[in-house]
């Protein structure tokens, strides 16, 4: 079986079969990170460009480690150091990168659709590490991987996602991914953070956190961005926390074996209290661990999978 996609741009373009293949591959990759010598020669001689036009620590690090554990060479370009600040257009930058023959370009960009725009112009595989408010497919895949690992399945589970759905690419990709895999997704937030027509993506909308969490197998909290206060989405962090913050008491409404997840970085005391973040239900650090394996799997598959592994 082969992975049929040149790029990984969003969850929408993946089939259930594709997602299972990625998750299966990632599970196999996980063991490599536990070896004393954490490196396999699979992508030796391949060049991976990490083209990050937005601040990022963990995602970039995760992609970088994933690449290096597969023996690929990585080069990082970030917003401050790139010619974008000198007025070069995104397409010109992409074409220049292309001229140096990279095999994979990982891109994070503040504009929705930027990864797709680049993918149409370059021969290299493009992996979307987050484009605007649109998609963050590797995050959704590592979340699905974590859920499948802990629960043994995704189908039939109740997934609650709470936070700024309107401005979250993680939420969009997770709604599409979990729904596609047969889970029921319910989102909740103040109405200012629920985008118009979100039900059309396949999720339900709950007006309060309690009904959203009720009977949930997974509770996923999204980061509340402090700068959003300027766009008048909520009055204060204090009030947000009172209405939509996750604490031990609220978590009681969920199933007894509920998983608590967060894509990070967390605002402790705002969307999530420390008692939950550090509690027995929290699998937030497992997400980070799985992120490396998942990204190794993505590199391996878009680079040609079995063929190049020979």
């Amino acid at each position, binding site marked *: 079986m082969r992975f049929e996609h040149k790029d990984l741009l969003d969850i*929408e373009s993946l089939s259930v079969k594709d997602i299972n293949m990625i998750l299966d591959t990632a599970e196999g990759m996980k063991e490599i990170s536990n070896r004393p010598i954490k490196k396999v020669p699979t992508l030796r001689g391949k060049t991976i460009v990490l083209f990050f036009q937005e601040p990022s620590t963990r995602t970039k690090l995760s992609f970088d480690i994933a690449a290096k554990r597969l023996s690929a060479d990585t080069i990082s370009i970030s917003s401050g150091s790139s010619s974008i600040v000198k007025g070069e*257009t*995104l*397409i010109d930058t992409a074409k220049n990168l292309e001229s140096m023959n990279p095999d994979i370009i990982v891109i994070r*960009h503040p*504009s*929705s*659709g*930027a990864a*797709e*725009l680049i993918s149409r112009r370059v021969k290299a595989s493009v992996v979307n590490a987050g*484009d*605007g*408010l*649109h*998609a963050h497919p590797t995050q959704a895949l590592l979340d699905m991987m974590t859920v499948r690992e802990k629960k043994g399945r995704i189908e039939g589970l109740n997934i609650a996602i709470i936070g700024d759905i*309107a401005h979250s*690419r993680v939420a*969009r990709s997770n709604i599409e991914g979990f729904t596609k895999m047969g889970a029921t997704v319910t989102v909740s937030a103040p109405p200012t953070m629920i*985008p*118009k*027509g*979100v039900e*059309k*993506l396949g999720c339900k909308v709950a007006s309060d956190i309690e009904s959203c969490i009720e009977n949930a197998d997974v509770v996923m909290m999204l980061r509340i961005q402090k700068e959003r206060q300027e766009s008048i989405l909520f009055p204060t962090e204090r009030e947000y926390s009172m209405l939509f913050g996750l604490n031990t008491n609220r978590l009681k409404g969920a199933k007894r074996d509920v998983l608590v997840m967060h894509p990070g970085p967390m605002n402790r005391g705002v969307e999530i209290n420390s008692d939950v973040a550090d509690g027995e239900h929290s699998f937030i650090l497992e997400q980070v661990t799985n992120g490396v394996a998942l990204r190794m799997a993505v590199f391996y598959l878009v680079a040609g999978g079995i063929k190049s592994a020979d």
Partner: protein
Amino acid sequence: MKIRLKGARVLDPKNIDDFKDIIISDGKIEAIVDPDYKTDPYTQVSESPESNMRDTKSPFSTHDGNNIIEIDITGMVAVPGLIDLHVHLREPGYEYKETIETGLKAAAKGGFTAVCPMPNTSPVNDNSSITAFMVSRAKELQNSKFSSVQSISSDKLGVERLYSGVCKLFPVGAITKGLQGESLCEYSDMKKAGMVAISDDGRPVQNARVMRRAMEYAKGLGLPVISHCEDIDLARDGAMNEGVVATKLGIKGIPNASESTIVMRDIALAELTGASLHIAHVSCEESVDAIRNGKQRGVKVTAETAPHYFTLTDEAISRYDTNAKMNPPLRTERDRQAVIAGLVDGTIDTIATDHAPHSLLEKDVEFDRAAFGIVGLETSLGLSMKLVQDGRLSLDNLIEKMSKRPASILGINNDLKAGNPADITIIDLDAFWSVNPKTFLSKSRNTPFTGFSLKGEVYMTIVDGKIAYQRES
């Protein structure tokens, strides 16, 4: 020298709809006559072949020793020249996108005999010197020898002298200096230089008090006020219609209310002041309802929409197509149907293009960074004809909306009648064609309609009795 347009159906809504010949002399319509009408020189048509020449491949023939040129347009429909109340010609300031020359040639190709360029040039058309520059540049082009006709197949007959460059230009001036929304421009001085209306298109007046004063002052000068209705705060950061498609794509939305609230405000101000208000590019249901209501109240309000609003919805953006990004944005199917209903019941008076040329520099970029706007002059008639073919508008209605109403809003009588300027659009109703941006005379190619198959095409555009455009075959 005279021209006789022969054989066409002459359609001037509420005036003529019959097979007539139009005789043009000195740039004006001399007479509209029955096909068998004979003027003196015509009596010689067959008798003296040495004074009559005919080129079998061309519609042209000469009579009376070249003093009369007949143009055979059998099978075509001749209508009063189309007028576009809303275009952007980008000169002065953005000549890399469009110039007055390329814009007016594109307009002539689209069947327009006059267009009204908006003032958001650089510098802004907020004083009489810019207005005068635009008018004189257009006159110079109109009187020049060249033509948008790319190859005059054979010119044994000397019909070259029939051709002119371009269509007419009626500039729209700014409401406020520098489009800053603060102080009024010298409307009277600009009117003397040729300005026909005022608008802060693209950067709408946010302050209701300023808008009120502008309307009052313009009323005293008999100038219509064209309003681009948008609440900038509500629309902030938005790049497409707020709705399911935007949610899916992760693009920030522009709600219908950012348009309709200002439509309602400006209708209230027109009621207060008695000014003539023209609502630009209506895109959504709530605006159509507000205008319908205003008209019922007797407010002097007219409105336009553009072909993209009754042809496309926000689904056209599904793959981040920046050529489907404009302001106001493409809305939903419900809005599209409301706009069509507004055209049908007369709430929306006119069809304009909002022709907004942009180069690849502004369009071949990330969606949220791309400029708003599409070109429209060369596709407007073909797209609008679809409404006729679908039985939504009669051909009469369409010509009203693309020619007669725009003229009356500007205070022009463009009836096809003796004494009026010979501004005539000749349409081949049965021609099928496909939109190919490579054939555009506009400098820019930013259209979402590439590959659209359309029926109904401009055959010839006559401006002041000269041919500003002629289809090649």
